[in-house]
């Protein structure tokens, strides 16, 4: 906990150049999917599999099916990689990716930074997929070049030659295809206790009777747990806690986006707001760029690196009934602390919520 490189494992791996295109990457953690942003096959494994890999450096696997998710066009201002990945889950549901490895592609994905691509792949697992993948390109190579554990010199050139073969061939078969227009994606929030409970911030808490089959009861229970009412405007939901961080959104670009909203502003009186860097190196960079000071001046706590309030396995937790605008990846009952209520969103949206004291449309602050 004293090494400046310490941080969330899925942020440390890419940052140090341990994660590279074409690799297989595993970890005893669901959000290993993050590393798929590099065009590496990456997924979580269980503890018995951890032991198997430690001992043999191999893993017993059945091949998954291929699914293509294409995001065309451009994103509107205020819409980020987090909104893209939440939009996909909103459409497929949490089981829509079950049995598949998703390849994300299209103009929107090509225009994302590596940080944004990691955010997209990170939540592939929340859509049920085994893994998420993005083919490596110039953006990927530029990110990897010069990292401490990336290849150097002639080895770099050889690696680059191989990485350039890592794309889906023309005419290759996908078992399932989903296409989304980038222009159709709005800043999103979750209203319920599943990552598929996604709506644009301009929406209202849904009426459970509008759902089909078994989902009626689930929606009813979600709304009760979350302390909401059907028909309530999402932008009227008051919050008391803001958490910016996690393997989903704890990278420098996430902090830049939040700081751009917070600059020169204060968070609402009484708000508990914390920003937790994904690694000691992200923390150092944010301090160097003056971003840390923007958070501190706005009233945020500027923390040391870790998983923090994403998962309530450390001292950073919600108390029963507390309601949090969170940039993490899971919102099930008790995820951030027993009885805690989680609304997932992008870092810019979380920053806007910290200022307004309620869920709010970041586009009104831009």
């Amino acid at each position, binding site marked *: *906990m*004293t*090494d400046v*490189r*310490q*941080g*969330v*494992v899925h942020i*440390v*791996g890419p940052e*140090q150049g*341990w*994660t590279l295109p*074409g*690799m*297989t*990457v*595993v*970890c*005893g*953690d669901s959000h*290993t999917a993050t*590393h798929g942003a590099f065009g*590496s*096959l990456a997924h979580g494994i*269980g*503890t*018995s599999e*951890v*032991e198997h*890999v*430690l*001992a043999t*450096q*191999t*893993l*017993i*696997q*059945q*091949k998954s099916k*291929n699914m293509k998710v294409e995001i065309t066009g451009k994103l509107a201002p205020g819409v980020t990689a987090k909104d893209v990945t939440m939009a996909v889950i909103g459409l497929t549901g949490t089981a829509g990716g079950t049995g598949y*490895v998703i*390849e994300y592609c299209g103009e929107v994905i090509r225009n994302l930074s590596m940080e944004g691509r990691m955010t997209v792949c990170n939540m592939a697992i929340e859509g049920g997929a085994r893994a998420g*993948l993005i*083919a490596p390109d110039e953006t990927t190579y530029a990110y990897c070049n010069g990292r401490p554990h990336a290849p150097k010199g002639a080895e770099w050139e050889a690696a680059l030659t191989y990485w350039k073969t*890592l794309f*889906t061939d023309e005419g*290759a*078969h996908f078992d399932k295809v989903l296409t989304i227009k980038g222009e159709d994606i709005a800043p999103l929030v979750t209203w319920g206790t599943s990552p598929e409970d996604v709506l644009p911030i301009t929406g209202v808490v849904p009426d459970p009777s509008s759902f089909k089959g078994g989902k009626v009861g689930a929606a009813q229970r979600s709304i009760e747990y979350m302390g909401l009412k059907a028909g309530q405007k999402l932008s009227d939901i008051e919050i008391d806690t803001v958490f910016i961080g996690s393997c989903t959104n704890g990278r420098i670009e996430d902090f830049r986006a939040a700081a751009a909203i917070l600059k020169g502003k204060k968070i609402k009186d009484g708000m508990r707001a*914390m920003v*937790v860097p994904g690694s000691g190196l992200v923390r150092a960079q944010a301090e160097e760029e003056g971003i840390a000071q923007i958070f501190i001046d706005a009233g945020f706590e500027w*923390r*040391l*690196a*870790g*998983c923090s309030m994403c998962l309530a*396995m*450390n*001292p*950073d937790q919600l108390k029963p009934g507390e309601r949090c605008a969170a940039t993490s990846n899971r919102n099930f009952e008790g995820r951030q602390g027993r009885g805690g209520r989680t609304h997932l969103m992008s870092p810019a949206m979380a920053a806007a919520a910290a200022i307004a004291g309620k869920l709010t449309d970041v586009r009104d602050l831009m």
Partner: protein
Amino acid sequence: MSPKTLYDKIWDAHVAHEADDGTCLLYIDRHLVHEVTSPQAFEGLRMTGRKVRAPEKTIAVPDHNVPTTLDRANAATMTEDSRIQVEATQTPKNSACTTIQ
């Protein structure tokens, strides 16, 4: 040669063995390790007298349990269980992997 997806290409490049029923043994390039899901696995290795096969490809860093307050060097902010788990990724008996302290 039939066209392949990106997933097909990475998969094919890592199959060490394929059984008749299609189950594959996949080679793993990077094994990332954190303190919550690894202590039992390390203990399992110790009990069976096995070693980490590729220490340079096995990278351990604590993240789930660590406090994020500026005073975290003070162990009092961690539960005993958390402290034991963090140490399990870093103590000499498990240090046959790459560790970030």
